[in-house]
């Protein structure tokens, strides 16, 4: 556990905490972008370069922009009168703490059975490409179908009512 890991982990966790605790919605969207960036740097430090750059491209470059657009279109920048936390916030916190304890126990227990020292995997884009059309061709096609369906579905769902269901 190098110091770099601790710094990146602290950055990502701070971004995550800021996301769920900040009241203005735009500030929360920017905080989640910081969390995405921290996660991308963590992937890079774990020798998963393709996943790290894909994370930057897709999450910061598309999902964060999408969220900002949605905030723009639904006028979420006005703060509601009764506050942004639902009245049942305590049960939500208790449930999240319980799930965190179970997950942490599982991870810490399984960390003992991991091999200690091994060679750093050198994964090239070439390897990923061959794996995608070789062993993982079925998930690749299914995800392509899913993305097509999601694109068409999002357009239909968000179309104007006058031109849509008649």
């Amino acid at each position, binding site marked *: 556990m190098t110091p770099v890991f601790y710094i990146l982990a602290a950055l*990502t*966790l701070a971004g*995550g905490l800021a*996301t*769920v605790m900040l009241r203005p*919605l735009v500030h*929360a969207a920017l905080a*989640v972008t910081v*969390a*995405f960036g921290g*996660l991308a740097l963590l*992937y890079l430090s*774990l*020798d*998963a370069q393709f*996943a790290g750059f*894909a*994370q930057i491209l*897709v*999450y910061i470059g*598309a*999902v964060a922009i*999408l*969220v900002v657009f*949605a905030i723009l*279109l*639904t006028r*979420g920048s006005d703060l*509601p009168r009764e506050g*942004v*936390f*639902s009245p049942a916030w305590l*049960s*939500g*916190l208790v*449930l*999240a*703490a319980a*799930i*965190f304890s179970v*997950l*942490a126990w599982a991870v810490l227990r399984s960390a003992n059975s*991991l*091999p200690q020292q*091994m060679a750093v*995997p050198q*994964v090239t884009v070439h390897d*990923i490409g061959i794996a*995608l059309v070789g062993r*993982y061709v079925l*998930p690749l096609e299914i*995800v392509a179908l899913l*993305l097509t369906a*999601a*694109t068409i*579905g*999002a357009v239909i*769902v*968000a179309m104007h*009512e006058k031109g849509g269901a008649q």
Partner: protein
Amino acid sequence: MLFAIGLAGALVRRNAIMVLISIELMLNAANLNFIAFWRYGAHPEALTGMMFAIFSIAVAAAEAAVGLGLVIAIYRHANTTDLDEMNRMKG
């Protein structure tokens, strides 16, 4: 830990967009687990963890697009994004 933060955010916040953002955080946390266990676990040359994480990024992006489209459509209908006020299924 990131997963628990996202889960708390999804359960506690009222704005619908905030819930979707928290769900994205949870998906990212699971991704981080995949990559970390792929790196330090057995068979890192099999690429399984990295593949799963890449597919998960793609699926999460598609789900975010559809979810935000739904939120926009609901906002047009009900003129609010407050989840506590949406307690009926029938429009």
